């Protein structure tokens, strides 16, 4: 058994290397010709840290708002009864199917009329709307798993529905909150279409779009270009390596059923 285990370990390294190759290639190429000087060049010439900061601000604020509005809603859908409950939930489910790009045309109109172009909220507001449906579904499923008797016991002790939500269910919702945070953060960080459409000023651009100047400058200097790509990819990559389980659970949460 020990021998076959070792054999398997070695064999499975082959597909793993196939998957890892492009990323390794990225790192190795970024060090070509001038080594780490490439990174210094990118950092001083192109102010990538601005992009990172912008994406970070948008992503964090979006996550906070999503949590703030979907956790109470999850609670309500799970533990409270109100007219239209099922229909509203069905509408939310259907909203998940809508590709962001298919509502891009009116979205541009709305953002322009609200004068939000080149403003962080031009992205935050749509991102919140787009990420809320799945956050709600995950939140509700989680809350369904929490016993309703907790609330009954709290009410006997004099709590209202709201305070029992705040002091009992909310603290218990930490696992699902971290899952919601992870995929919302990732969706915001990686989102491309709206970031391209709404953030046109160079200083405001997101990590996912990388200024055109950047591409044009680096076109012949591939190692430097790759160094820039490594820099913008690094934050999420490091977060992933640190919080692997949360990442993988969070992103596949919707699919692991049946």
């Amino acid at each position, binding site marked *: 058994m020990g021998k076959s285990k070792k054999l398997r370990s070695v064999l499975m390294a082959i597909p793993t290397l196939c998957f890892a190759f492009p990323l390794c290639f990225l790192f190795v190429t970024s060090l070509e010709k001038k080594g780490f000087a490439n990174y210094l060049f990118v950092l001083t010439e192109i102010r990538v840290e601005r992009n990172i900061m912008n994406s970070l601000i948008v992503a964090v604020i979006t996550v906070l708002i999503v949590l703030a509005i979907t956790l*109470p809603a999850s609670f309500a859908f799970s533990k409270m*009864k*109100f007219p239209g409950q099922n229909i509203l939930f069905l509408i939310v489910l259907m909203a998940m199917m*809508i590709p962001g790009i298919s509502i891009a045309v009116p979205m541009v109109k709305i953002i322009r009329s609200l004068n939000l172009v080149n403003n962080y909220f031009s992205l935050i*507001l749509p991102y*919140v709307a787009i990420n809320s449906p799945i956050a709600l579904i995950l939140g509700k499923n989680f809350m369904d798993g929490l016993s309703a*008797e907790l609330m009954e016991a709290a009410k006997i002790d004099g709590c209202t529905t709201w305070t029992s939500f705040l002091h009992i269910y909310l603290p218990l919702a930490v696992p699902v909150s971290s899952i919601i945070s992870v995929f919302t953060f990732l969706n915001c960080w*990686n989102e491309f279409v709206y970031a391209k459409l709404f953030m046109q000023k160079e200083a405001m651009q997101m990590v996912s779009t990388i200024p055109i100047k950047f591409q044009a400058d680096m076109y012949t200097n591939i190692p430097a270009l790759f160094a820039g790509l490594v820099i913008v*990819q690094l934050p999420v990559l490091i977060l992933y390596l640190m919080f692997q389980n949360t990442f993988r659970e969070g992103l596949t949460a919707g699919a692991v*059923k049946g």
Partner: protein
Amino acid sequence: MKKKKSLSAYFYILPMFLFFAFFLVYPLFNTIRISFFEWNGIDPEMHFVGFQDYIDMFHDEIFYKAFANFAIYAVLVIVLEMLIGFSLAYLMRRKNIMFNIYRAIIFIPVILLPVVISYVFTDILAYNYGIVNETLRALHLDKLALDWFADPNVALYTLIGITVWSGTGFAMTVYSSSLTSFPSELIDAAKVDGANRIQTVTRVVWPLLKGTHFSLSIISAISALKIFDLVFLLTGGGPFHATEMPSTYMYDKAFTLYEQGFASAVSTIIIIFALLVTFIQTKLSAEKR
């Protein structure tokens, strides 16, 4: 426990539904509305044209090409991701530290930025200087050194390959989770009945994961419908519409040609299509249980 019907619940759901209404529902209805007009996106005036946009669209052969490409793309991506993902998950189902490391690595492409993926692959698969073609030529396999992005017959499959690379980690992780809760007595029972390894997998394990197959295929189908970033960055829909997808087609019409009425018609069709696909898949999965 009895739940009183209360209206205070509306306060809990109001903030979320406000966002929902303004930034999802309202744009959605507007997309449908704009599809009946002719508009360049800049003029304050729109020109009502009824179904003309739709008629023009159904006469545009690129529209059909985009959906045909999409069909090939979606089917191949979903099938390949599920098969490869399952195989990897199954082969690494036993407890093993190396397997944990491998799985962690295989998942990484799922979280990468589209920009990063596109630049890396554009370089790796460059016809003249890309490492793939250079290696093939060094091995005297010149005929295999294809023009991965510029050959209309190859481009779509290059795109499919890259998508599978970036998405298989997801399928694998889902199957891994399902397999850990898989009753091993069934595998043992099958072995006792004389099944060899392959039969055990195909006749016992795979069929029992039906629930996972369906959720995964629905999620993959929805992701496939949303595909835009990679296509746009890698090929822009070219060469000669070989990789045109409904989403790039719509984007071109909306933001390159400024025919936003037409683009909205395309969007409406995409949305209807998305709802149909999901509806059918959910029906199928509900029936088969």
